[in-house]
């Protein structure tokens, strides 16, 4: 329906990118429930996605279960795994939990690699094409609304209290263990939905699609967008779904670098307003450097465009954490604040 409408002025490749934005939005907002809202640290989100994707694909492939039911079953299975992973959270904090989630996801991947009924290391081919842009769009919107409501309820506040101060939360009657497990279960459920959408869209699944890299990719989305804010997760998912595509050719790279430069200017403006002269000198030098690289490094950039993606990702991770831990959405809010105050001043 909407897909047909879009196909009038967009290529099928562009529509595919849009669909992936949807799928990754579901993944990012659900991971944000664990990492951003509850303050736990999961780097195994791809594992839940894999469970959902494989279970749903198994059901539609072998038993011709309708897509919606299969997706629901996949999501529930993923939620069950979320419960399993949630249990160690009774005991683990911070970094130990991170390693445990990574371990769980790796175990799932290794098991799938050895599971012949879903193709094992050859991958699961021949999955019916049961999801398209329309399905993805509708399910993404529903997921966003549902999780948004969740975070704005007493449940969401309880999760945030755990992030802020676990002991104080306990003393205020918040059963922190229950809510931590709940966060994992809810997040895993939605990751499972995303997995089903992914499998039935691509018509192929491979265990190595759900390795640590995928989990990190999802993590990067919420870091870039701003953790603990679903709009931030959405923004992160959009940016990081488009970024690798735009890094495929020189023109795209130029645009990307220009945008990154402008964001950098905005961040440094936010941080260093006190000394305008130094700030101006800084952006001038950085701008000249960027221009120099673009003009004289054209050959190199074109040759290594593919390999530079991960390097750009990792530099982004480090710089965001050091200079802009509240993410793009935090930056937007900070920049908007003086503007808002000025507007309010005019009214008064």
């Amino acid at each position: 329906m909407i897909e047909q409408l879009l196909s009038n002025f967009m290529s099928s490749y562009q529509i595919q990118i849009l669909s992936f934005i949807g799928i990754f939005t579901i993944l990012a907002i659900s991971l944000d429930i664990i990492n951003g809202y509850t303050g736990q640290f999961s780097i195994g989100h791809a594992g839940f996605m894999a469970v959902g994707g494989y279970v749903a694909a198994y059901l539609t492939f072998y038993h011709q279960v309708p897509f919606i039911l299969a997706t629901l079953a996949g999501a529930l299975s993923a939620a069950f795994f979320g419960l399993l992973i949630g249990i160690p959270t009774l005991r683990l904090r911070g970094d130990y939990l991170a390693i445990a989630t990574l371990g769980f996801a790796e175990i799932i991947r290794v098991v799938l690699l050895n599971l012949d009924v879903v193709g094992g290391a050859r991958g699961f081919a021949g999955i019916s094409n049961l999801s398209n842009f329309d399905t993805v769009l509708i399910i993404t919107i529903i997921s966003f609304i549902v999780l948004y409501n969740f975070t704005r309820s007493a449940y969401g506040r309880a999760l945030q209290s755990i992030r802020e101060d676990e002991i104080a939360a306990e003393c205020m009657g918040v059963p922190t263990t229950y809510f931590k497990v709940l966060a994992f279960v809810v997040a895993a459920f939605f990751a499972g939905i995303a997995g089903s959408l992914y499998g039935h869209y691509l018509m192929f699944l491979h265990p190595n699609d759900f390795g640590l890299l995928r989990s990190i990719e999802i993590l990067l989305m919420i870091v870039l967008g701003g953790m603990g804010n679903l709009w931030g997760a959405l923004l992160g998912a959009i940016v990081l779904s488009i970024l690798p595509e735009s890094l495929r050719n020189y023109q795209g790279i130029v645009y990307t670098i220009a945008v990154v430069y402008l964001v950098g200017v905005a961040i440094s403006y936010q941080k260093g307003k006190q000394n305008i002269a130094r700030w101006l000198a800084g952006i001038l030098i950085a701008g000249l450097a960027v221009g120099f690289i673009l003009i004289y490094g054209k050959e190199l950039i074109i040759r290594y465009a593919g390999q530079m993606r991960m390097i750009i990702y990792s530099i982004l991770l480090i710089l965001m954490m050091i200079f802009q831990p509240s993410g793009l959405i935090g930056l937007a809010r900070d920049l908007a604040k003086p503007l808002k105050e000025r507007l309010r001043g005019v009214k008064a």
Partner: protein
Amino acid sequence: MSELLQLKAVSKNFGGLRAVNHVDMVVPEKGLYGLIGPNGAGKTTIFNLITGIYEPTEGEIIFDGSLINGLQPHSIAKRGIARTFQNIRLFKELTVLENILIARQAYKKYNIFTAMFRLPGYFKEEKRMKEEAMEILGLLGLADKADYKAGALPYGEQRLTEIARALALRPKLILLDEPAAGMNPAESENLMNLIKRIREEFITTVLLIEHDMKVVMGVCEYIYVLDYGSLISQGPPEVVSKDPKVIEAYLGEQVNA
């Protein structure tokens, strides 16, 4: 008056260190009791034992007629014990109102699906919870701060917010851990009045740890004195303040009744 909280020969060891040693305490219903002692005497440890953060090594803690040692802090909170912390532990990134609402979350009357799909019960219940929270904030004079981030408030108001959050649990017993710490004389004067008001308006029992002797002596009906983990004295303020053991423990610090 019947006893609300009772500690029977409670001890707590950390490794080889005995932080609390055979402490017997009784706090009656509607009482306003104080727990004092020099630094490191084990006062906060006793609060942590009562609220379930630590489990006693020996002894029994009885609240409202049932044994509570070994219970999780959140279920002790639900039984009616609320507390504040010596080093303020607010949910800093959340607003003052949200801080209060979190203490009310155990009483929410909607389930997760109602929340996710905003079914009819949701709006009514949220409105009710917000009204209750605003009422408590109003009583403590914090109503106009409801939308501020808790971490952005000045120190004195953060202390008040913590008390408001504890009261939002509708506790039978409220434990205040050095509420006057870092306050100037005028502020602690106000605090004394507030603590008295809390007992009247919320019909609750108060147990207070305090370093500021003026505050303790001014509001408490009965005082327990702790030194090196053991009780060394107890009684009404005028008795305790004349006890030579107490004066010795506080050697160098002035004790004014």
